[in-house]
């Protein structure tokens, strides 16, 4: 057997059950007898006062066990804690007011879902409609309607930052280029919706909740606080299989609390499976953002400073971990470039839309849309080729590790080599020729470029920059990105691994098996990995979970270290039995042998046997059994400093994209002809899975660029309530994609790996926008919002035509 396992494109151990219908997803689970089903009544209004709720008729319907309303929830829970100072009271059901279409108002529990839905229709709610706030800029106006009167404005969080000497950079600039960009609200719509099973046990006042939640497990304490329950009496279990999330399912936690309350009040175990309409209107999404950006530029295209004002709409309530979207990319605000002067103003506003939360790329797509657009605009303004402008600004290989002005520590990289590889891959020079010829025939071809830094493994401390240094100093500093793993071997030699990374399709079981297989010199297929998270028995910490691409840099490191501890123990026992020192030994093929005298050997099974069956024969001071847990964090994940500098991530990868599009001027239709992407994610642990993650992230970014939007009308009514209105890319919308890799190992992680899979979600919206802008170069069009629907592109062209005609 080959000893090298890490880095091999091993087929996934998850696949057999998932292709044969034997997965266990939340809806498939019936962990207790007598589970009843919940259905949720939701607000049809964007903003209204609740005058009365009448539930009696519903309560008397066949099979109905009871109804829970906001009054019940307010009586027995606390508002959810959140990391800002604005006093926003967010409960799992609306109390007094509704603030977005789809906000939960009441819950019916019945014998089955059909009966529960019948009863929903019989609940009467009297509303007094109020004016709604929909647009970000409207929310900022002093006379705007207020969502939360006690806050005094619609602003949930507001901060200013200055790094380096931005005023000087702008004073000394040859040109200043500025523009306002609007990034839309969209989701990732996992094909499996939210689901919760909750069971309250009165004898010890404890709650057991199963849900397709995937962390961050900081939210376990948020849930316990809301439920007024000791954290060890709130047991959370995650099913083996979760049907995709891309961040969105971390937003299920208010429903976990809600079903906990419902189970307690009605004295029954309850199950709630969200339907698609509920999911689209009320689950979670990325934030929409308006960014005012200014770049200070030298004549040769060097960007020396940036000013950015970013305003996120977090929806009707600022819900943890928001306003983190504003700060997730704080450390890498200056992207892949050597820009030393940076001024930022960050604002989170509340609007009458659904609350936001984690989403693949979190903050990255919102950041890079204005940043990479402005880089292209710099080139246009100065009459330079965009590739030249990017190259001149990219960090050089020799500059790593590089500290960004806002405190990020880019661990490694070779951006220019990756970029050159990309330019070769897409045939940039040849394309420019082709583009000229096409233009002469009236065809609009365009090429877009984008270079982005992909942060992974978030530092728990980054989100505290939402607070001022003074506010932060009042509580315990937050740092690190701790994750745990356990490796154990049973008396017969069976190896099992327990992880707390709550995977949602990323193949953690496979990669963990590869790592343990390599460290212990066994076939990975013989290693059993248990990924079902259980907050009472799994090794976990606040940062546990599946988000910020943290498995490759962090989760896998915990597995590696736990396996290393087992290995060390086995070698110690073997050395004792073989009468040598541990460093003379090697472990492979299920055996431990003397490196110089392989005939002297002992099988792993025998060593494990000694630890279990004959502990008296172990070397002095050795504990019996084989069961080792390791926790891993990265030393550079420090709390923010006094100057608000923070290294928000464990590792920083790099992605360079080039996209070729054709725009049909008559219809506004954008067709992607070619998509090339070069990644540097350090050492790849499993290239098959890595490319799968890249493709998935890219498809999501492409959806954001061209199709997806959670749209509201000007009164706050929701317009994208089904998959007929909310368009997701299907197989026919996928362009030809070429993926390239270079590997700059991270010097910080034990395996040299960095996270990946979110990069193209961050880059695709802007690189496609850049390509469309390039195609429309002859028209006076500034691509400054998304999605690039045919209607929008066509209107831009018409407006520009009109302007030209008027001018003529």
């Amino acid at each position, binding site marked *: 057997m080959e000893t090298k396992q890490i880095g091999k494109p091993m087929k996934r151990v998850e*696949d057999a059950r998932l*292709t044969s*219908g034997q997965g266990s997803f939340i*809806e498939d689970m019936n962990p207790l007898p007598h589970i009843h089903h919940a259905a949720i009544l939701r607000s049809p209004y964007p903003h209204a006062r609740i005058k009365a709720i009448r539930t009696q008729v519903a309560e008397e319907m066949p099979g109905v066990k009871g109804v829970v309303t906001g009054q019940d929830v307010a009586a027995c829970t606390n508002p959810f804690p959140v990391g800002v100072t604005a006093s926003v009271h967010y409960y799992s059901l609306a109390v007094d007011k509704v603030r977005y279409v789809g906000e939960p108002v009441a819950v019916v529990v019945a014998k089955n879902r*059909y009966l529960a839905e019948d009863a929903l229709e019989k609940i009467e709610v009297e509303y007094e409609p109020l004016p709604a706030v929909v647009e970000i800029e409207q929310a900022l106006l002093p006379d705007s309607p207020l969502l939360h009167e006690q806050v005094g404005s619609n602003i949930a969080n507001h901060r200013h930052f200055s790094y380096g000497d931005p005023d000087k950079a702008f004073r000394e600039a040859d040109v200043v280029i500025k523009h306002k960009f609007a990034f839309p609200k969209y989701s990732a719509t996992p094909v*499996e919706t939210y689901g919760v099973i909750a069971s309250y046990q009165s004898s010890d006042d404890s709650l057991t909740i199963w849900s397709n939640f995937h962390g961050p497990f900081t939210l376990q304490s948020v849930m316990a606080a809301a439920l007024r329950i000791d954290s060890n009496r709130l047991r959370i279990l995650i099913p083996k299989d979760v*049907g995709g999330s891309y961040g969105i399912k971390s937003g299920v936690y208010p429903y976990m609390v809600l079903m906990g309350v419902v189970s307690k009040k009605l004295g029954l175990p309850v199950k709630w499976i969200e339907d698609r309409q509920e999911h689209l209107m009320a689950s979670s999404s990325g934030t929409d953002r308006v960014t005012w950006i200014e770049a200070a530029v030298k004549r040769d295209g060097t960007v020396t400073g940036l000013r950015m004002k970013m305003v996120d709409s977090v929806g009707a309530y600022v819900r943890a971990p928001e306003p983190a979207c504003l700060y997730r990319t704080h450390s890498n605000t200056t992207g892949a470039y050597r820009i030393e002067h940076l001024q930022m103003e960050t604002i989170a506003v509340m609007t009458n839309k659904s609350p936001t939360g984690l989403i693949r790329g979190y903050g990255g797509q919102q950041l890079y849309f204005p940043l990479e657009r402005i880089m292209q605009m710099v080139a246009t303004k100065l009459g330079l080729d965009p590739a030249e402008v990017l190259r001149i600004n990219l960090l050089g290989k020799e500059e790593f590790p590089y500290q960004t002005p806002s405190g990020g520590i880019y661990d490694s990289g070779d951006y220019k080599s990756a970029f050159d590889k990309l330019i070769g891959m897409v045939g940039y020079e040849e394309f420019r020729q082709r583009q000229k010829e096409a233009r002469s025939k009236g065809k609009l071809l365009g090429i877009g470029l984008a270079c982005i830094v992909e942060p992974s493994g978030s530092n728990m401390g980054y989100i505290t920059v939402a607070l001022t240094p003074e506010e932060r100093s009042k509580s315990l500093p937050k740092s690190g990105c701790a994750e745990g793993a356990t490796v154990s071997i049973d008396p017969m030699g069976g190896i099992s691994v327990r992880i707390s990374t709550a995977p949602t399709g990323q193949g953690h079981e496979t990669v963990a098996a590869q790592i343990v297989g390599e460290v212990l010199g066994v076939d990975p297929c013989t290693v059993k990995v248990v990924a079902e998270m259980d907050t009472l028995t799994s090794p976990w910490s606040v940062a546990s979970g599946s988000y910020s691409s943290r498995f490759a840099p962090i989760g896998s490191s915990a597995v590696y270290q736990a396996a290393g501890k087992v290995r060390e123990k086995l070698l110690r026992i073997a050395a004792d039995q073989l009468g040598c020192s541990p460093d003379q030994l090697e472990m492979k093929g299920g055996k431990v042998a003397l490196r110089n005298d392989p005939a002297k050997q002992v099988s792993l099974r025998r060593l494990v046997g000694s630890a279990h069956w004959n502990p008296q024969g172990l070397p002095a001071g050795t504990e019996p059994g084989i069961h080792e847990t390791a926790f891993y964090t990265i030393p550079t994940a420090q709390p923010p400093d006094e100057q608000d500098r923070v290294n928000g991530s464990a590792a920083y990868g790099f992605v360079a994209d080039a996209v070729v599009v054709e725009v049909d001027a008559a219809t506004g239709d954008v067709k992607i002809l070619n998509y090339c992407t070069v990644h540097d994610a350090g050492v790849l642990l499993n290239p098959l899975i890595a490319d799968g993650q890249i*493709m998935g992230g890219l498809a999501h970014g492409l959806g954001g660029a061209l199709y997806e939007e959670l749209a509201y009308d000007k009164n706050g009514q929701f317009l994208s309530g089904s998959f007929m209105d909310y368009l997701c890319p299907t197989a026919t919308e996928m362009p030809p994609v070429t993926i390239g890799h270079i590997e700059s190992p991270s010097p910080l992680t034990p395996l040299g790996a960095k996270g990946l899979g979110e990069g193209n979600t961050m880059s695709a919206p802007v690189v496609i926008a850049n390509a469309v802008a390039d195609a429309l170069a002859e028209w006076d069009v500034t691509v400054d919002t998304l999605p690039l629907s045919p209607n929008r592109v066509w209107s831009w062209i018409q407006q520009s035509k009109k302007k030209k005609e008027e001018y003529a």
Partner: protein
Amino acid sequence: MQVKREERYSLRLQVNGKRYEEQVEPRKLLSDFLREDCGLTGTHVGCEHGVCGACTVLVDGRAVRSCLILAIQAEGADITTVEGLAKDGKPHPLQEAFSECHALQCGFCTPGILMSSVEFLQTHADPGKEEIADMLSGHLCRCTGYKGIVEAVQQVADRRKEGEVRESGDPVSICSRTTPTV
């Protein structure tokens, strides 16, 4: 057929070669019937409005969205779900190809896509990438970007053309167990 809402209807059909006779409410969806009454939870529900394709099963050999029909409409039908794909303990070639080509991540969309692909391969002797993509456009997968899925279906089509597909899980033989209806 005439049934009242509160009445139960005695439904008889075959699923994966097994006979089922159950009392069902007329309004019960076929997807819910398969999952709840037959315990076949491999058929997934992602939208209940006919767009995502996760609930696709074969009804008399045809790929059908089980969220769009009532269970009672399947009276007398012969249904195949993802649980019925492997035969005699051997996986169907599509199941293997999906793993080889990394055509799944979370696997939630996979059962429906497998069932559509089974029907597709039965009706398309020598499909090209575009035809495969067209067939897949009735399914949403938010994990994979579809690349691996197209490749997996293509791989099975190519192998079948080269006569490599083993008897046990032949995509044709699996469907020939059912009798198409008009």
